[in-house]
């Protein structure tokens, strides 16, 4: 059954439903490049699975990923692929990454993997690579060029200054830690990216996945990539560029020049959250900045996953938010930037245009 057929037959009754997947009537621009098709993929990210001991893992984080996987499997038609956005584990242990691979194996669609700093700074991504392959790569799908970057690298000196891998990992996992180090894509990967992009026509739609934002938001929490400007510079010449990133555990969207930025939700916990959260023995890292949450007792509060409609080279992010109103951030062809389809900020809060 074609999605469009379903829309016609079921009408308004199903507005907002995602089973079958999306009922968003996609706008096909007249100037859509030949060969570009509309399609949907899913994005699950930041599960932070944490081993307590042996076969015991933090239940809350496990349930978050399992729920996202189970809900994603309900999509009909199936998404073309599912991107995992990084931070599968919490402390980079092989046991965590293997446990995550096991949970993700229940997905019924092809997987693409991206690395997060929590998967990396224990053994510098060795076990992750053994399980999932390349740390950065590109692929083409239905006329769109996809690039998966490893944006969580940092300088070599910092990497090798630690006595133990655990020390390195826990320092990088901390927030507002003066001993941390800013993320970067790095020179060699930038050279690879330059070469990769050199074969791509300027009117080809590009989607870049990065774990950290390829824009500078807040350094203390590494909502930051040090060489973001250099990457943006390489991407600006293309007509339609979409950057989708994890790491921030909240919904963000922004437009810088030709580049649309969208973030994704975490399946584990939202940033920020209150330090007053002390319902039971907890495994949340300590926080310095607080935010009101509806109810931290509700474990899936302010978490979620998303499916993404690609149309005419633009991305619309459909956030699936348990016990919450689902949200859609769609590219507005008129204003030429991503916008929430329901919540309008008006002029009160201008988007970030600088770095």
């Amino acid at each position, binding site marked *: 059954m074609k999605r469009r057929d379903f829309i016609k*037959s*079921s009408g308004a*009754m*199903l507005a*907002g*439903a*995602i*089973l*079958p997947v999306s009922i968003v009537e996609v706008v096909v621009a007249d100037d859509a490049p030949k060969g570009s098709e509309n399609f949907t993929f899913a994005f699950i990210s930041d599960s932070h699975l944490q081993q307590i001991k042996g076969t015991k893992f933090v*239940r*809350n984080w496990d*349930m978050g990923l*399992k*729920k996202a*996987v*189970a*809900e994603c*499997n*309900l*999509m*009909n038609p199936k998404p073309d692929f599912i991107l995992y956005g990084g931070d599968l584990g919490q402390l980079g242990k092989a046991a965590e990454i293997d446990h995550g691979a096991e949970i993700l194996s229940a997905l*019924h669609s092809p997987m693409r993997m991206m690395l997060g700093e929590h998967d990396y700074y224990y053994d510098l991504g060795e076990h992750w690579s053994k399980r999932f392959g390349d740390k950065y790569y590109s692929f083409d799908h239905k006329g769109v060029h996809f690039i998966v970057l490893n944006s969580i690298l940092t300088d070599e000196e910092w990497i090798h200054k630690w006595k133990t891998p655990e020390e390195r990992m826990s320092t990088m996992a901390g927030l507002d830690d003066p001993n941390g180090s800013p993320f970067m894509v790095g020179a060699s990967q930038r050279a690879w990216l330059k070469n990769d992009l050199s074969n791509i026509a300027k009117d080809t739609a590009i989607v870049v996945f990065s774990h950290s934002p390829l824009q500078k938001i807040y350094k203390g929490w590494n909502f930051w990539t040090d060489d973001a400007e250099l990457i943006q510079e390489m991407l600006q010449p293309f007509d339609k560029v979409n950057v989708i990133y994890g790491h921030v555990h909240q919904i963000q969207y922004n437009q810088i020049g030709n580049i649309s930025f969208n973030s994704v939700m975490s399946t584990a916990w939202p940033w920020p959250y209150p330090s007053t959260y002390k319902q*039971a023995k907890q495994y949340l890292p300590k926080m310095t900045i607080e935010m009101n949450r509806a*109810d931290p*007792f*509700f*474990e*899936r*509060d302010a*978490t979620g996953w998303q499916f993404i409609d690609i149309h005419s080279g633009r991305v619309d992010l459909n956030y*699936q*938010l*348990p*016990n919450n109103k*689902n949200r859609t951030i769609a590219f507005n062809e008129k204003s030429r930037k991503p916008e929430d389809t329901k919540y309008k900020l008006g002029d009160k809060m201008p988007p970030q245009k600088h770095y």
Partner: protein
Amino acid sequence: MRRWKETILLMASTLFVHAQPLGLPPVPIPADNPQTNSKIKLGDTLFHDARFSADGKVSCSTCHAKEKAFTDHLPVSKGFSDMQGTRMGTRSAPTVINAAYYTSLFWDGRVPSLEEQSKFPPINPVEGGLHSWDHLVDMLKKDPNYVKAFNEVFKVEKEAISIEHFAKAVASFERTVISGDSKFDRYMYGGEKDALNDAEKRGLKVYLEQGRCVSCHTISQTHAIFTDNQFHNIGVGFKALKGKSEAVASEYIERLKAHEKSVAKDKGEIKNLAADELVLSEKRFSELGRLAISHETDDMAAFKTVTLRNIDKTAPYMHDGSLKTLEDVVTWYNLGGKLKENDSTTAFLDGGIRPLDLSKEQEKDLVVFLKALTSPQFANVKDVK
């Protein structure tokens, strides 16, 4: 003074006067279906009339019997019988008591009002089994007593009697089936500090704090309806899907499309009537819960939060009647959606269903507290089949 007199007169002549039970807010009355004594009386009669079923033996009160606290004390309800035997539904009959406060009806909230709710069971193929509402309305028109009563209540001639009149009368009656005045209400809202004993008070504390029951079964400063009117997956019934939730959901959507067409042809375009038939006739579809109506993935196997008033008198529990005692129910929540520590649970579980770490004493106190939610008029209900 004069105005006061007028008010009294007005109430005496047209309105059903009902003392507000302690602990309940005013009953919401739809503007297009005001309460009148004669309408309530008619609704009461209709509610108990077994003629509106294929075998002439099933009325609303069959599954919602007053002497059984307006439920049937069965795990899942029985419908009409014929040569093929007795039809069995897929869900447990929720009590009618205080149903007036729900913002949607049925376990999956497939209708928005008591009026809409009352219309479905008579024509559901496993409940009343009538072919159509026309059939029901014909029976009303053939009964001179009903013709007279409908004329009196709705000022309609015989030929103009419709299923909507039936629905309004039944709903009006159901809006009188409300009950508060429990020990809890006297303690909480009546200023009787000793209405609850120590164990019940400890249970209330568990309810409000570590047990977090109150998150969904709400209590406010002035009243308690014990429901958030939302839908939650609490892990009940998922085993019936045998790990095939995706396949069952997809099959359901396909079947629903086809069934909507045939229902529309047979009975007219009636919202969610096709879903009503599918979920009550096929156990696996029933277990899809709210998803069967909303088609949202987050609603997979989610069911409506039901009231806890008179909960001691409305066993068995949960949408499928799978838990027999309040002790089991409390254990279920305490373990985060299971009866035994090593049982598996569903990936679709609501984020509020998590291990609570209650002690055995706390569990006991909680059960004792739940038993203090019984209203005096249902205190003598015996849980017998």
